């Protein structure tokens, strides 16, 4: 499947991209993180501390165990600081 993967705030800066299309068979968010981290060091560095990373699947807040079957968009970002 092809996923739109989005990065925000310092994840965007560390990875160096706002978004990319990723061809993957990852079953869960955790699998996708492992796959991206294995690609290049900038991903591994960005995902080094997953306690500091939040994830949304199709624009809903989810966690690492969330299955990706049927998903179209996955976003990674730090804890939110709006308001």
């Amino acid at each position: 499947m092809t996923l739109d993967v989005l990065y925000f705030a310092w994840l965007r800066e560390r990875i160096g991209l706002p978004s990319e299309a990723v061809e993957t068979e990852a079953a869960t968010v955790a699998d996708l993180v492992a796959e991206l981290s294995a690609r290049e060091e900038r991903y591994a560095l960005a995902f080094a501390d997953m306690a500091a990373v939040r994830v949304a699947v199709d624009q809903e807040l989810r966690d690492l165990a969330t299955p990706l079957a049927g998903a179209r968009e996955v976003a990674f970002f730090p804890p939110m600081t709006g308001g």
Partner: protein
Amino acid sequence: MAIRVQTADFDIGSELAALRAGRRDIGALVSFTGLVRDLGGALRGIELEHYPAMTARALAGIEAEARGRWPLQASLVIHRFGQLAPGEQIMMVATAAEHRAAAFAAAEFLMDYLKSRAPFWKKETTATGEVWVDARAADAAALARWAPPS
């Protein structure tokens, strides 16, 4: 009920006037405004980034949750993004109800949820560089005061 995400500034007076225009049933109108706070003169400005597709959904969900919990007659959320200077307005919420308790509680609830559940990120620029603002433990604690959404 209205939600706006924009770069432009807003005028609280006109927003509140529009919210209650032509109505005689509102007894309590509460508003909160968040401002860019200077760090003892050190802050040059902030940049607010957001996730547009998710922001609209998250804010609509938070507002719907507030309406399910309190008898609100009207509500408004405006949140800016982009570059903001110290002293500028970042966002506002307004809630209207027959009585003040619901209006106050709903406004506080909206703020607590917005802080930790709406996809916005602040980056501060000072003379020494740029730094992404960390989420505060106090904000998570404020959110935890409210029972989880049904």
